[in-house]
C-alpha cells in the first residue's frame, strides 16, 4: 500500500506536471529547432512570438466570452486559438518581409541574425505589453479538473490523491495531435521534404526545384502556429504574463540544444528531459521517500535538491553539460 501511495504522490506532483510542462517545452523547442534548421539562426524572438500569439488568443477569448460564446467544459481559448495563430503568422511573415529577408539577401553570418532576432524580440515584447499590459492573466474558463484529488481518493480508497487538471490533459492531447501532424507533413509531403532537404543541405536544395522563399515562408507559418499553440497551452496550464514567456526562452533553447538543434525528434525528447529534470530537482521528495523507504531511513528534511526559485538554473546546468560533452545533442543535430 505504501508503495502505491508513494507512486501516486510521485505521479501527482512530478510525472503529471512534468509531462504537461514537457509537452509545452517540446512544442516551443520545435519552433526554435525549425528556425535553426532551415533559416540557420537561433531565434531569440521565439519566446515573445509565443507571448504575442497567446495574447491574440486571449483577446479573442475575451471577445468570445463577451458574446456569450463558450465551449462548455473546454476552455474558450481553444476556439480562439486559430485567430491567435493567424495573428502570429501575420506578424512573423511581416517581420520576415521587412527585417530578416534583407539580411538573408546580404548573406550575413548567422550571429548577425541572432542579434537581429533580439531586436525583434524587444519589438514583439513591446507590442504584446501594449496590447494586453504586463500583468498576470488567467484565461482558463473550462472545467478545472479532469480528475480531482478528492474524487480519486474516494474511488480508490487510497490515502493519496491524484489530480489531473483539464489543462494538463488538453496540453498533452493537443501536443500529440500537433506533433503527429507536423511529422506527417515533414516526412510525407513534398513541401515538408523540401524543408528537410533545405535543412539537410542548403547548397544542394538551391540546385533543385525548391523555391527557397517559399520554404522560408512555410517555415515561418509553421513556427508561428507552433509558438501560439505552445504559448496558449502554457498559459492555460499556468497563467499568462509576457515576462514569463521571455523567461521560457532558456528552458526552450536548452530543450532544443539537448535534443540536437535542427532535429524535430530531438526537440521533443529535449523538452521532456528538461521538464522532468526541472521538476524532479526542485521537488521536495520527503513524502514520496517516506512511503518508499523503510522506516529507519525516512528522511527528516525536505530532500529538495534546489529551491523552486532556482528552477531555471537546472536548464542552464543541463545546457552547459550538453554543450561541453555532446554539442550535437542527443539526436545529432547540427553542432552549435
Amino acid at each position, binding site marked *: 500500500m505504501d508503495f502505491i501511495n508513494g507512486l501516486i504522490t510521485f505521479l501527482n506532483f512530478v510525472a503529471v506536471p512534468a509531462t504537461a510542462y514537457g509537452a509545452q517545452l517540446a512544442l516551443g523547442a520545435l519552433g526554435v529547432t525549425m528556425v535553426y534548421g532551415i533559416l540557420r539562426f537561433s531565434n531569440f524572438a521565439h519566446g515573445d512570438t509565443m507571448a504575442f500569439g497567446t495574447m491574440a488568443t486571449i483577446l479573442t477569448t475575451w471577445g468570445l466570452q463577451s458574446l456569450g460564446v463558450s465551449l462548455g467544459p473546454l476552455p474558450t481559448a481553444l476556439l480562439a486559438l486559430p485567430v491567435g495563430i493567424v495573428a502570429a503568422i501575420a506578424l512573423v511573415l511581416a517581420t520576415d518581409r521587412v527585417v530578416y529577408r534583407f539580411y538573408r539577401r546580404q548573406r550575413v553570418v548567422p550571429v548577425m541574425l541572432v542579434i537581429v532576432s533580439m531586436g525583434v524580440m524587444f519589438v514583439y515584447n513591446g507590442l504584446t505589453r501594449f496590447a494586453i499590459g504586463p500583468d498576470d492573466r488567467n484565461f482558463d474558463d473550462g472545467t478545472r479538473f479532469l480528475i480531482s484529488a478528492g474524487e480519486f481518493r474516494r474511488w480508490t480508497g487510497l490515502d493519496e490523491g491524484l489530480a489531473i487538471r483539464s489543462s494538463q490533459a488538453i496540453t498533452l492531447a493537443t501536443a500529440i495531435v500537433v506533433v503527429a501532424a507536423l511529422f506527417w*507533413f515533414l516526412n510525407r*509531403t*513534398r*513541401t515538408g*521534404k*523540401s524543408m*528537410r*532537404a533545405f535543412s*539537410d*543541405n542548403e*547548397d*544542394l*536544395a*538551391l*540546385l*533543385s*526545384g*525548391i*523555391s*527557397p522563399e*517559399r520554404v522560408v515562408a*512555410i517555415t515561418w*507559418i509553421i513556427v508561428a502556429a507552433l509558438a501560439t499553440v505552445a504559448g496558449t497551452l502554457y498559459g492555460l496550464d499556468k497563467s499568462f504574463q509576457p515576462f514569463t514567456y521571455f523567461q521560457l526562452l532558456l528552458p526552450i533553447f536548452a530543450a532544443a540544444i539537448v535534443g540536437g538543434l535542427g532535429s524535430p525528434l530531438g526537440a521533443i525528447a529535449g523538452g521532456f528531459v528538461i521538464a522532468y529534470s526541472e521538476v524532479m530537482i526542485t521537488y521536495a521528495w520527503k513524502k514520496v521517500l517516506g512511503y518508499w523507504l523503510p522506516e529507519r531511513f525516512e528522511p527528516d528534511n525536505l530532500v529538495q535538491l534546489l529551491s523552486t526559485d532556482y528552477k531555471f538554473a537546472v536548464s542552464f546546468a543541463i545546457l552547459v553539460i550538453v554543450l561541453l560533452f555532446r554539442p550535437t545533442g542527443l539526436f545529432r543535430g547540427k553542432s552549435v
Partner: protein
Amino acid sequence: MIVVDDVHKHFGGFHAVDGATLSIEKGSITGLIGPNGAGKSTLFNVIAGVLPPTSGRVIMDGEDITGLPPHTLFAKGLLRTFQIAHEFSSMTVRENLMMVPPGQRGETLWNTWFQRSRIREDEARLAAVADEVLEFLTIDHLADERAGNLSGGQKKLLELGRTMMVDAKIVFLDEVGAGVNRTLLNTIGDAIVRLNRERGYTFVVIEHDMDFIGRLCDPVICMAEGKVLAEGTLDAIKANEEVIEAYLGTGLKNKESA
C-alpha cells in the same frame, strides 16, 4: 551559349580565378582541365551563382547572369554537380532524385491538403522517371537506400542522375568520374554522349582522367593558376608549351600512360 568574360575571384589576397575568359559552344562537350588548385571548381562556383565573382561577367544566351542565385540559374536550365558529392542524407536515393524537378503541385500548402490524389499521380510519375534514371546508372538496386549510406562513387552517380531528372540546357560536371570504377566510368561517358545527342544538353566537364577527356571532349580548355592557358583539341593542348610547363611536376604524360 556561355561566355565568361574576364572573371576574377579573390579569396583575401589569393587569386583563385585570375582573369578567366572563355566561351562554351551550344551543343558541345567541353573539357576543362588543369593542375590541382588551378581554379576550375572555383570558376564553376562563380558561373553557377554559388560565389559572387570579385569582378567580371558571365553571359548565358546573351543575358548577363553574373551573381544570380543558384536556384534562378537552375530554373534557366543551368545545372551543376559538386566535386565533393552532396546528397540529402536522410532521404532515400529515389527521394533525392524526386526532389529535383521544379514546379511540383505538392509545393503549396493548399495543394498538400486539398489535391492529394493529383499529387499522388505526380509522385508516381516522378518515381517512375527516377527509377529509369537509376537503372540507366546501374544503381537501381539502391533506390530505397538512404543516400547518406552510399559509397563515394555511388554518390557521384547520384549527382549525375540528378541532372537527368529535368530538361537541362547546360550541365557543369565537376569530376563526376572521381572514385568511380573504370566500367562505370565508361557508362557515365556513354550517358553524357547520349544526353548530349538525344536531349541536346551542353556539357562542361572537369576531369583529371585524360582518356576520359580525350574520348568525350572537344574542345578542351586548360587552366592554370586561375587563368586560361590554351583551348583546342586535346592533342593540340598536350603539345602546347605552356600547358606542359604548367603540368610539369604533376606529370600530364604520366597520368596519360597510367
